[in-house]
C-alpha cells in the first residue's frame, strides 16, 4: 500500500483578540494556501504520490487547487495527486477533529501535516491515533509547532512517510496534559493548562495577568511565547524529558516573585509566581481555585463552578510528531536527497 500524507489546514486560526491587545500577526488565507503548495511540492520531491486534505469553507482548498491548476498549465507536474476528504463541513473545530479521525481510520495515511496554532494541533492530536503529526505554525501562540520553513517540514514529512527514515529516528513522542471536570471525558492540552478567575470563555485569549492563578505545562521552553513562557523562564523543561511543571500564580502586585514573560506576541507582562514544582506523569493535580475558567494552550475553553471537581494529569508519550531536525540530519548523512546521474559514466 502506497503511503499517503494528510493535510489539515485550519482557515480560522489567528483571528482572535490578540491582534488588538497584543501585536499578533494574521496569516492570510492565500498565504496558508501557499504554505500548503510548498509542502505539497516537497512531498512530491520525496515520492509521495497522493495527499488527502481536510475540506473547509475558509478558502484554502480553492486557492490550492488554483495553484495546482496554474502549475499544470505551465507543464510543471510538481505536486502529488490531491483529494479532499468526503465529510460534512461545520466551520468549527469539529472539522479538524473529524478529518484527523478519518485520516487515522483510513489506515494508509502515514503522516498528517497540520497548519494552525496550538489549538489546531491539539484538536488533531486528540483524534489522530497513532499517526504522527508534522506541525506548521499559522496560529497566534505557536508554542507547540516549531518555527520552520514549510518546505523543510514537507520534505521531512515526505521522507518519513515514504519509510526512508527509520521510525526511531523519524518520530518523537510527546506529552499531553489531560483535564477532566467531574470525572468526565478529558480534554487535552499540548503545551499548557491555565486556571484563571474568569468564569466565562469570552474572547478566549489570556492577557489579563491579574486573573492568572495556576499553570500546568507539558514543557517549559524559554524560547516559546504564551503561558508556557512563564514556566520556561522559571525552570525550563524540555519536550522530551519526562514530566512537566506546575506553578501557583498570583497578581504581580502581591506575589513573592515576579517574572517578565512574553505571554502573547509583543506583550511582555509581569506575572506573579508563588511557587512551582515538578509535575510527574500520572499524578492528579487539583486546582485550589474553587471556580474559574480553564485555558487549554492559552485559550479559555472550559469553566467550572464551586460544586465541580477538576483533575489535571500529565501523560507521557501521548502521541507522536515528525522530528524534522532528526529526519533532515539523517537524510543529509545518508544522502537521501543526493542524485549522481553521471556516476559510472565513462569520461
Amino acid at each position: 500500500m502506497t503511503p499517503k500524507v494528510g493535510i489539515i489546514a485550519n482557515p480560522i486560526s489567528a483571528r482572535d483578540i490578540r491582534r488588538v491587545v497584543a501585536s499578533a500577526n494574521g496569516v492570510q488565507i492565500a498565504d496558508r494556501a501557499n504554505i500548503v503548495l510548498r509542502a505539497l511540492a516537497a512531498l512530491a520531491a520525496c515520492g509521495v504520490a497522493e495527499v488527502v486534505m481536510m475540506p473547509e469553507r475558509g478558502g484554502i482548498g480553492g486557492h490550492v487547487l488554483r495553484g495546482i491548476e496554474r502549475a499544470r498549465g505551465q507543464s510543471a507536474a510538481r505536486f502529488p495527486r490531491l483529494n479532499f476528504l468526503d465529510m460534512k463541513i461545520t466551520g468549527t473545530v469539529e472539522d479538524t477533529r473529524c478529518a484527523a479521525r478519518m485520516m487515522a481510520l483510513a489506515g494508509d495515511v502515514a503522516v498528517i501535516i497540520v497548519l494552525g496554532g496550538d489549538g489546531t494541533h491539539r484538536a488533531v492530536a486528540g483524534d489522530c491515533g497513532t499517526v504522527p503529526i508534522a506541525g506548521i505554525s499559522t496560529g497566534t501562540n505557536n508554542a507547540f509547532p516549531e518555527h520552520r520553513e514549510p518546505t523543510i517540514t514537507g520534505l521531512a514529512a515526505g521522507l518519513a512517510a515514504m519509510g526512508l527514515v527509520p521510525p526511531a529516528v523519524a518520530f518523537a513522542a510527546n506529552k499531553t496534559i489531560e483535564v477532566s471536570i467531574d470525572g468526565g471525558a478529558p480534554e487535552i492540552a499540548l503545551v499548557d493548562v491555565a486556571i484563571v478567575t474568569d468564569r466565562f470563555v469570552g474572547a478566549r485569549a489570556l492577557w489579563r495577568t491579574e486573573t492568572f492563578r495556576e499553570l500546568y505545562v507539558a514543557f517549559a521552553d524559554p524560547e516559546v511565547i504564551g503561558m508556557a513562557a512563564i514556566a520556561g523562564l522559571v525552570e525550563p523543561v524540555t519536550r522530551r524529558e519526562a514530566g512537566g511543571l506546575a506553578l501557583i500564580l498570583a497578581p504581580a502586585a502581591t506575589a513573592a516573585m515576579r517574572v517578565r514573560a512574553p505571554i502573547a506576541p509583543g506583550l511582555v507582562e509581569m506575572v506573579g509566581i508563588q511557587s512551582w514544582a515538578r509535575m510527574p506523569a500520572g499524578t492528579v493535580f487539583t486546582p485550589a481555585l474553587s471556580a474559574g475558567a480553564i485555558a487549554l494552550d492559552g485559550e479559555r475553553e472550559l469553566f467550572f463552578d464551586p460544586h465541580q471537581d477538576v483533575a489535571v494529569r500529565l501523560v507521557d508519550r501521548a502521541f507522536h510528531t515528525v522530528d524534522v531536525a532528526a529526519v533532515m540530519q539523517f537524510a543529509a548523512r545518508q544522502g537521501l536527497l543526493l542524485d549522481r546521474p553521471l556516476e559510472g559514466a565513462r569520461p
Partner: protein
Amino acid sequence: MTNNPFPLPKDELLAAYRTMRTIRDFEERLHVEFAKGDIPGFVHLYAGEEACAAGIMSHLTDVDRIASTHRGHGHCIAKGVDVHAMMAEIYGKATGACRGKGGSMHIADLSKGMMGANGILGAGAPLICGAALAAKFRGDGGVGITFFGDGASNQGTVLESMNLAAIWNLPVIFVVENNGYAESTSVDYATAVDSYVDRASGFGLPGVTVDGTDFFAVYEAAGEIIKRAREGGGPALLECKMIRFFGHFEGDAQAYKAKGENDYNRTNRDCLKIFAGRVTSAGVVSAAEIALIDREVAALIDEAVGQAKGAPLPSARDLLTDVYVAY
C-alpha cells in the same frame, strides 16, 4: 457585587440581559404584527443577533455614534432609542422617532448617537468616518461604530471607508455582522476574500473574529477595540459570527436554509439562553431576576404596540417638513 467573576457588575449584567430581551421581544412581536398587514414597508428582524448589539453598545455612551443597517432595530434599542418611539416609527405614526417618515429602515435619534438605520447597504461606513473625524477634531473621546452584514462588506463604500479610516487614523470600528447569508446568498459563494480579518489587514487594520452568540466574547473583544480607538490607536474590524432566526425580510420563505436550521439554532445557539444560563449557574443572577425582566419587557412591548396602533398618522402638511436641516 462580591465574587462576581464576570467583567461587568451585576446591575450591568441585568441591564445587558434587559437590552437583549427587549430586542428579542420587540422583533418577535413585529413578526406577529407584520403578518396582520398594519405595518407599512418592510421589516428585517434582528432576533438571534442580540448579543452583538448589546455586547458592543455596553461600552458606548451618547457621545459615541453608530451607523446602522436595514436590520437596525437591535442597534437602536441597544443604543438607547426609546422603544415606544421606535414602534410608532415602524407603524408610520406621527409620534415615531422620525415622525413616521422613516419607518423601520430609517430610525434615527441623534441625541442618542444613533445616526440611523439605513436602507442602502454599506452606506453607514462613510457616514461613520465623518462622525469619527468630527469626534477626533472635537477631542471628545467619542468613537464611531458602523455595522454591516457579510453582503454589504463587498460594497465599495465599505472598502473605501476602511482606507479612509486607516489613513486618517479615525476612531472607527467596522463591525461585520456575519449571519452567513446576504439576503439568500451564502457568504461562501459571494465573498472572494475568505476572511474579513484578512480584508482588514489589507488596509493595515487589526481584525478580530468572535462568536457573536456569546455576549461575553463580543463584550470582551469590543471593549478592547473601543478602548484602543478612544486612546488614539485607530480603526479596527470586529467580525461577529451570528445567527439570524428569521428570514432576510418578513415573508421570506427561507428556502436557502437547511431543513431544521432555525429550530437547531433556537435550541442550541440562542444568545439569550446562553447568557442567562451562564450568569445564573455562576450564582451571580437569580432565575427570579431573569423572569422579572422577562415580564417587565413583555409589558413594555405590549404597551409600545398599543400606543403605536393608537397614535395618529402624520398629516399632509408634514410632508415637506424635516426634509432639509440647517446646521
